[in-house]
Structures are given as C-alpha cells and as structure tokens.
C-alpha cells in the first residue's frame, strides 16, 4: 500500500466517493442553477499544476468537473464518472485519486496535478510521457492521461518497479483497447529498465 494512503485518508475518500456518486447520479455534471450552496463558501482557491486558481465551486462539485469545465483542463477524462475506469486519475499531494470521485472542496489545501501539469516549464515532456511516446503506449488514448499520471505516482514511490509491481500499481486504470503491454513497456522505459 502506498504509505501516503492512510486509513483516515482512505475512509475520507470513500465518503467523498459516495457523495459524488449520489450527487452525480451518473451524469457528468453539477450545476449552479439547480443547486443552492449557500452554506458553503463557493469562491475558493485551489492549487492546480503549481498555480493557484480561483474558481466558483458548488458543494457537490467533483474535481473532474472543475478541472474539465471550469479550468479547461480536458486532459482529465471521464470514462465512467463513478470510480470504475481511472481515466480521470489525478495526483493530489502526489497520491493518485479519481477526480470523478473527489469533491473539489476537499482539495482546497492540497496540490493537484493533472496530466497537463507534468511537462517541465520549458515544455519538455515528463520522462514518463516521453517513455510512453517512445513505446507508443496509447491506442485510442482516452485512458492514457490516467495511465501517465498513475505511472508518475508509482515511480515517485517506487523508482524501479518490477513489471508485476507496475501492473499492480496501474490496475485501477482500465484500457479497453488492451494496450496494457505497451503501457508496462512505458513504465519500464521510464524507470530506466528498458533501453
């Protein structure tokens, strides 16, 4: 288990997941017109990809919704919107989370990293992105941002994973095209184990 994933954090995650699932009801939305959020401050600051962003967030709003539709960070994909596929995986304080199952209000004091935040300031691809490109990891690419982000998290905690460790770490990220072998090759290349 990831040492940063504490029991307390896990339980909180489950609570948020339930809340998000209830509020979303299978839809990719939350909306200002139909919900009142008077009890909670709505204009909040969140740290995304190293920048502080002021954004109007509803109490029941998921991080995926905020990222995609308010901050135009559409690299975070919604494949299921209910914590099944992993296409919306982002890092919160370097730990992978499903953005579809995380309430935006819960990340106010945290650092959120999306796939768009991985490039270096000079535009260089992140080593994981470069490795995935070299191995042509994606097929359709819809799950790829999630796979990339999950790999970045893996290599932070385990810089030289075995192939078995890598597939365990990425197992929360579905790829319907079945590009698993290519993604694992990407992990091995990014960790310097494949030249």
């Amino acid at each position, binding site marked *: 288990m990831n040492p940063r994933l504490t029991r307390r954090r896990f339980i909180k995650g489950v609570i948020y997941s339930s809340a998000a699932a209830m509020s979303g009801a*299978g*839809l990719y939305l939350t909306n200002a017109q*139909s919900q009142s959020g008077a009890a909670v401050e709505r204009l909040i600051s969140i740290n995304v990809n190293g920048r502080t962003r002021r954004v109007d967030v509803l109490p029941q709003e998921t991080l995926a919704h905020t990222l995609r539709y308010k901050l135009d960070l559409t690299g975070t*994909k919604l494949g299921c919107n209910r914590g099944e596929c992993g296409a919306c995986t982002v890092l919160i304080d370097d730990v992978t989370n499903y953005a579809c199952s995380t309430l935006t209000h819960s990340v106010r004091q945290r650092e959120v990293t999306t796939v768009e935040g991985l490039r270096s300031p000079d535009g260089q*691809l992140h080593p994981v992105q470069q490795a995935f490109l070299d191995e042509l990891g994606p097929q*359709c690419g819809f799950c790829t*941002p999630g796979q990339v982000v999950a790999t970045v998290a893996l290599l932070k905690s385990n810089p030289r994973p075995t192939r078995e460790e890598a*597939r365990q770490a990425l197992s929360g990220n579905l790829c319907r*095209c*079945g590009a698993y072998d290519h993604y694992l090759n990407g992990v091995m290349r990014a960790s310097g184990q494949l030249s």
Partner: protein
Amino acid sequence: MTYMHIGKDFTPPDAEGKITGAARYAEDHRKEGMVFARLLTSPVPGGMVRNIDATEALRMDGVLGILTADDLPEAPRPGNPALSNELTYVGQPILAIAAISEQIAEDALGLIRLDIERRPFVVDPLDSLIEGGPNAYPEGNVMRRGENGMELASLKWSTDAVESFRNGRDPQAEFTTEWSYGDLDAAFAECSVIVEEPFVTAGYPHHSLEPRTCMSYWENGRCYFHGSLQSQSAANAPLARMLGIELDQLCFINETTGGGFGSRIGPYPFMAISGYLSRNLNRPVQVRITREEEFFIGSARSGMQGWMKVGLKPDGKVAAVDLIIVNDGGSTGSGSGSSSAGAVTVVYQPTAMRFRGVSVFTNTTPRGAQRGPGQNEMHAVLAPIMDKAANQLGMDRVAFRRLNAPDSNSRIDANQGPVTSAYMREAIDMGAQMFDWQAKINQPRRNGSKVIGIGVGQGYHAAGNNGFDGIVRIGTDGKIYLHSGVGNLGTYSYAGTVRAAAEALQCRWENCEIVRGNSDLGLPHSSGQGGSNTMFTHTRANWVAAQDAIAKMKEIAAAELGGTVDDYSIGEERVFKTATPAEGLTYAEAAQRAVALGGRYSGAEYPDDINELTALAVQKIAGTGLVGVAKDNLEKNGTAPGLAIAFAEIEMDLDTGKYEILDYVGIAECGTIVHPKGLSHGMNGGGVWGMGMAGFERHVYDPQNGLPANIGLYQSKPPTFLDVPVQMRHAAVDLPDPQSPVGARGIGEPAMGCAVAAVTSAIADALGGHLFNRVPVTPDMVIDHVAQNTYNNKSLKINTF
C-alpha cells in the same frame, strides 16, 4: 523487398497529444452558446408510448426545447431509431430535452409524464422461438422474406424441437438462413470421429472508454458536427442523409475517438438528436451519454445458441461440419451466424458443410458489429470442440490445425470463393516454435490444487476491401500532404495507410503532413474503419493516388525538359531524367508548374469515377499544389483474409475456479507488416479482448422484468492489467499479399478470435478435456465442474443464469 517506410516504426502525429492530454475528443469541444440535451429512456422492455406530457418540464427555467420521435423523419421498422414511441428494450431513447445545462435538462426529464402501454417481452431467443412464447415485436420475432421483401414474421418451433436443441441435438426445425456446399452425408460417412456439441456465447457491450458524444451547430445553412466515430469520411454521407442535407452542407469533425470496436463505424442514431435540436434552437447542442447508457444505446455483440456436428477422416482432415446458430438479435434483430459459419470454412477447410441459422429479436439492447462479429464467438467455442475431435483421433492439436490450415489456393465461405493469399501453416509453425508447444504440452501439469492447461486457437476475419479513393497533394513548397479519410479510432491506421503514398513517392516522412479529422480539409471517400479492412483497402487507395501524382510530375517534367514520361524517374523528392539525373525538377518545382498549368494537375479537374465526397474534397484543395487523386481500380480477386493463431498457457486453481494466463503468443498472418508498433497494438489488444470474452464479459437480464442486471464496468468487466499476462508475445509471418501494392492485409479482429480460442482450448485442456461449450467461463462454472455438480451448460440459456 526493401522499403523506406513500410515495415518501419514511426511516431504517429496524434500520439503526443494523447500522452499530454492535448488530444481533443468530441466532448472536449465547446462552442459559444452551447447547450445540452439529455435523453429520457424507456423504463420498460416492451411497450408503446401513448402520451407525452412535457408541460411542466418545458416551463422550467433554462429548458429550451424538446425533441420526440414525431419530430424526426420516420425511421425504418424494426430498427434502431434515434427516438421512438415504440419501446423494445430498457434504455431506449424516447425523447430529448435541451437546456442550458445538463443538470437542468436532467431535472426536466423528471417532470415528463409518460403514458406507456406495456407489451409482452422476451430476453432469451429460445423463449421466443418456443411455441406460445412471446415475440419482441407484435408482428413477430424474426425477419423473413415475404411478399414485400424482408419483413417481420413469427417463427415458432415445437416444444420438442426446442427441448431437443437445448439438449444438444439437431432440432429439425425451421430456419431463416441456410446454405451448404459439398455432399454432407457422404462426407460424414467417411469420418472415423464425429463430435456433436451444443454451445452458447454471451452478448456484451463494447465499453469504448469514451462515452459517445456529439456536438453540432449550424452556420449559413451548413452543419458543423463533432462526433466520436471510428470512421471519418465514411460518416459524411449517412450523417448528411440523417440530417436531410446535401453532402456539401456537412462538415464532420472527428480528430480523436476513444475506441469503437464496431460500435461506431457509422453515425449512431442519436447523432440525429444533436443535429435536429441545434438546427431547431439555432444553438450548438451537445449530447453525451453516461457509462450506464452506453449499455443500452451503445449496441452490443449478438449472443449465440448453437449446435455443431463435426466429422474427421482417419487422417485428421475435417470432412464435414453441420452447424446451427440461433442468434440473439436484441431489439434490432442483428445476428452474425452466417459469418460465424464462414469462419469455420476458412480455418478448418471442411470438405462439406451446412449452415442453418435464425436471428431472433429479443427485448434487449440493439445488436451490431463488435470486433469479429460472428467469427470470434465462433472461434471461442469451436477450438475446444475441434480439440476434442483431434484428441479422439489421437492427433496432436497443432498438427491437426496445420493439416487443415488454409493456403493461397484455398476456397472459403458459403460460395467457396478464392482468397487473395493465405499463409496459415507458416503462422502455425512460427507460433508453435515461439511458444515451444512440444515442451509446454509435455511439462508436468498438476501441482496441488493448481493445474496447467495448454491451448491453441485460430482467428479469421475478411480483412480488405477495394474501390475507395486517395488524395495526395504536393505543395508548392515541396511538402507532401497526405489526405486521409480514415478515422482515428486508436489503431493508427490513418497514419499507417498513408505511408504507402509516402513509400510510392519516395519522400522523407519528416516532409509529410497528414491531413485528417475534418472533412472541410478535403478528405477522400474512405471505407468505414471496421472489419479489419483499413490496411489493405487504404494502402491501395493511397498508393494509386501517389501513382497519379507521380505520373503528373513526370508529364510536367517531360513537357518542360523533353522526352517522354518513360524517360523519367523519381527519388529524393525530385522527378528527373533516368539517364541524366541532374536534369529534373524538385517536387516543389513540379507543384509550382502544376498550379500554373491548372486542370487535372492542380485539382481543377478530376477523374469521373471518384466518389462525390472525394470530388468535393478536391474542389476544396484545387490550386494549392499538384493534386494526385484516384480511385482504387487495382485488381482484387477473392477475399483478403486476416488470419491469426495463438497459444496460451494457463494455471487454473481448482479450489477457486480462477485461472492465470501465464504465457501468451499470438501470430499474425496479415501480409506485409506496415507499422510494427501498430501491429503489436492490434495483436496484444485483440488478445486482451479475447481474454475478456473467454472469462468475463456478458449481458445479464432479469427475465421477470426485462431489466439489465449488469450495467457497470465492474459488472460486465473488461480485462484489467491483472487479468492478462504480465507480458504478451506476438510475431507476424510477414509475407506479402500479392493484391496489395505493399503486401498488407488487416488483423484487428482475428487477433481477438485466436486469443479467445486459445484460452478456451487451454481451459478444456486443464480440465482433462471437459467442454463447457460456453463463454465466458466463470470460476463458479469451474468449481461446479470440479465438485461434480452438474453445471447446466446444455440448457442454452442466454442473457440469464
């Protein structure tokens, strides 16, 4: 043959966007003033909407409009209409509400009052076929030729016939499709081994990871449509027809698609909703569906209930096959039984064969093409049955397959037509060696509760078409613009196929730019990206377009520098005199001359035989360079087969019923390798799909209420990282097909068929030859078998437990 580009890896230009998140899928596109539509779907499996009361919904703030079936052109029946008052499955769209937000649209749906008259329904084809059983439609349960062509009819079997079929015997009943070749009785008479088995395969959803989305808007009478289809140019004509507009009134934009697997080859019905609502409201309208709705609206593979009798001659040759398939056609009645039977003719080459089939409507989700429709589910159950026959004859399973393998002289399908080429024996030999078949089958098999199973299976799908168009444009700066009408569904075939043009032009890949993803950019008429056909079909089309460009450059050079076109060659992006290479023109100079010359050189004129869409495309780019444009009129004689063989080693735990796939080798027989990494994706991805069919994926319906019981990814589970081998291996025969200029055929679907066959073969092998005759094989089935509980695999139940 030595190529510049064919057979070499490259980085497709869209790949970086996929790993950075910059790639734009349909739902990523926004437009000023865009509004949203949500669908109200059927809560019942069968019925008729008698009244819709939308008064309260339309009064809500933010609600902009409603679209019902009455607002759309009448759809053919039975079919898969965008909206319908006749309800034939749970989840069928009834109406759409447009609002300024999805939430408001969804809230408004809750205020709609429907008056629905319920009808009888059925979720299992045999429950409909049996005398007295319900029909999915009032008029019947099958399509049959009548006085007015194909029409709905009621087909019933006697109770005895259904019981006979359920118990693994020929029901001696009526079918709607039948074909045969050879003398079946005489062929069976020659056999020393005859195996007779029933079988069942499950239907299941495609689960493309991108839920389908469309967004459209209208400007100056033209519709700009963002879609999420597998295909690009193949969408234009049917989508224009759907919207009731001319081809030049549609701009179809589809840069990236999150998977398709057959479910998005052409426009899906609810695309009409976006188009009509956006026209009615004069605002951009986006419609996207949820993961749950993908189960209903996304279509699915047809399941099969079947019976098969196979006869082997003493030497192991397959002499006779008698096959019956009842397809679960869902609400659209679509089945692939004949394709299933065709696959048998290819892979095992029986001397005589008969197929009888019927596709029965059920009140379940619409059925459509899904990766190897018909063929792959056939391979799933066929492999263990053939293993049983070979084992009874005492013959090695690989040697048996090698003996019966197709080659370039083989005849296939009901009409016993020719193939363009086939090298299946070479594939078998390569795979057996790579997998180390002999060592694997001779290893110790049992270790405590664990038992090793070794399997082998084959896959086939027709893999190539012809008659489509190509466009190549050489800019006045010498840059090569490769116009592709191929969709970007994740196979990289849009890029792989234009490499044939780059190859013909002998130009640097760095100097090429692929033009794609937006029909206003001038994209040629293309096939749909389904049926494994793209590689064969569009390497040909790109090749002929490049040849047209080369011919025009030679004409220009000959006119300016003297001599005839035969005196000229190309190389290093120049057209030059073969005898005196210093005399020539660069591609840039040739393109400049073409623009000055106009006419056919610049695209101002074009061939008469190209498709209307290609003509429109050429009109868009005319005058911007030298335009090579041509229809693929190259010879094509026979079916271009995609063939594959796979080997699997599994370790089954008899205590839990679970198995791990320890080793997997897939061998492609798809002509020349065009793009090695693309082929790797096809083979491994197909392998993963095969493993999903073998062990996990299925529809389950509640027979009492017609409700789908598994509508989540975890309930009808695609394989995860942990369900497939840690490493998958593949290779390809890499022998050219003579009817492709670069030797290529397709492989996407056989890559799955061989995998599911190899895994089901391995499961049977692990259990000492026990046949479940069913996919998916789940752990409870294994445990029941091991515990000697009678697993009821001969009831032929489908969609239910």
